[in-house]
């Protein structure tokens, strides 16, 4: 480790997974993702230890750290807390200088923010009341279809005629899925139908924050090519996706630590 180079960490304690990113001059040195499980404190410590050991350093070598996410208060180490939406905005802005709208589709919530050219949050909305717009909807349906989460995207691209759900409720869609399977609907058509339903729900949020291009899609949802395509279709714009969509908030947190703001 070079003593003249400064390292910064960002930790994102989310409802489903905890992410850590180590950076230096906005460049990712190492990253780590782990399931949150039942104990945020222990898991957060493990994730931090993991990312540090990947970089061959210890906590003393860090010049700054920011924690964010739903479970930020549970962090077992002293670090500044910044809201996940600010971190997400910062991260997306660092990755894509043209980013003006950020859509974060997480395991439990979907958040949409319009950001300024400097990467500050101008407006922000969140859907926490209903599972339809979030990753949970996909998880519920994938469980019935016995499809792994990472298979959903590629599989849905094979769809010729997406199923039109008569409902926007994840619970009702679950039973509708069962009847559709009984009627002979194909798995890929059901998944593509779920993507459409989610995309239309997400689009409602995006419209309310007054979308500006470019649009970035992050969070676990960004790893699902079918969902990205559906969102891009509904919004009528190209959607940018980070290389590792689940890391962008942790990356943004690290960037904020580095900037010392």
């Amino acid at each position: 480790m070079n003593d003249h180079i400064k390292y910064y960490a960002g930790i994102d304690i989310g409802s489903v997974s905890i992410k850590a990113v180590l950076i230096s001059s906005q460049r990712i040195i190492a990253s780590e993702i782990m399931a949150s499980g039942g104990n945020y404190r222990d898991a957060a410590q493990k994730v931090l230890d993991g990312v540090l050991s990947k970089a061959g350093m210890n906590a003393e070598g860090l010049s700054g750290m920011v924690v964010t996410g739903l479970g930020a208060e549970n962090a077992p180490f002293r670090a500044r807390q910044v809201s996940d939406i600010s971190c997400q905005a910062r991260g997306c802005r660092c990755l894509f200088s043209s980013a003006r709208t950020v859509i974060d589709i997480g395991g439990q919530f979907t958040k949409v923010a319009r950001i300024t050219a400097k990467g500050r949050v101008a407006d922000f909305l969140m859907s926490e009341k209903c599972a339809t717009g979030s990753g949970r909807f996909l998880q519920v349906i994938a469980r019935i279809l016995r499809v792994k989460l990472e298979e959903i995207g590629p599989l849905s691209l094979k769809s010729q005629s997406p199923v039109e759900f008569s409902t926007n409720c994840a619970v009702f869609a679950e039973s509708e899925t069962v009847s559709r399977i009984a009627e002979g609907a194909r798995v890929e058509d059901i998944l593509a139908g779920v993507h459409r339903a989610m995309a239309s729900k997400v689009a409602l949020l995006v419209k309310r924050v007054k979308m500006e291009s470019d649009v970035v899609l992050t969070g676990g949802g960004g790893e699902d090519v079918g969902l990205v395509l559906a969102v891009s279709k509904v919004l009528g714009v190209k959607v940018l996706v980070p290389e590792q969509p689940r890391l962008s908030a942790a990356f943004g947190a690290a960037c904020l630590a580095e900037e010392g703001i």
Partner: protein
Amino acid sequence: MPFAGIDIGSTMTKVVIVDRKETILASVIGPTGVEHRHLALKVMDEAIGQCGLTFEALDFIVATGYGRINVPFADKQITEITCHARGIRAIFPTVRIIIDIGGQDSKGIKLDTGGKVANFVMNDKCAAGTGRFLEVIAETLGVKLADMGKISLAAREYVKISNTCTVFAEHEVTSRLAEGATIPEIVAGLHESIAGRVVNMVRHLGIEKDVVVTGGGAKNIGLVKAMEGKIGFPVLVPPEPFLTGALGAALLGKGFFDRGMIRDHERRLESVTFFK
């Protein structure tokens, strides 16, 4: 002169047969299957058998409920709003507000002083506030849906369930259990949550005495009590809440017949062959 009403709901199919004097001759409740039509016939057959009639002896058959268009042997289809109103008015003539908590939707119906439907509100978009919410969470808790009312009465206080969405509430319930909340407290909290949603929806109609709660939700004493708490006065519950739609359908059929209306089409033969 018998008249039949068949109510095909999302989870249950109900048949009521009445005579000229509006006395109930037979009533049957069965689960709604994937193929509504077969089940409609089966339940109807059972009801006919109960009062020793034949299918052809029925003077008028009215179908209602969300599966009403799938009944090939019905003489007329009428919405469940109208049928519930008619059925409940026969039991409680003073009714002004009907709250129907079904397996997959919930409704509020307002009647004018003459007993006519004046307005209604409905939620079929979201599982929260419907029987489905309780059904899903009963499974998570490992308790029977039919036991939830009694279970909740054992709670001295309730655990607040802050998530509206059924999917999220399911998780919340698991966390509350892990924190040491008891099942009765949680079930009472669920009843509070549904009651809050349904009563708030019905408030748009202007709540007036008497209020009747019907549908599967009315069989849940805990839910009924929670609703009374929100409404601020006691509500009435029919002796068999599942049957009010089918009863109304049968009575409306009698009304049509009395006004000289007869079957406008031949009852389809296929329905008869199914009775074998």
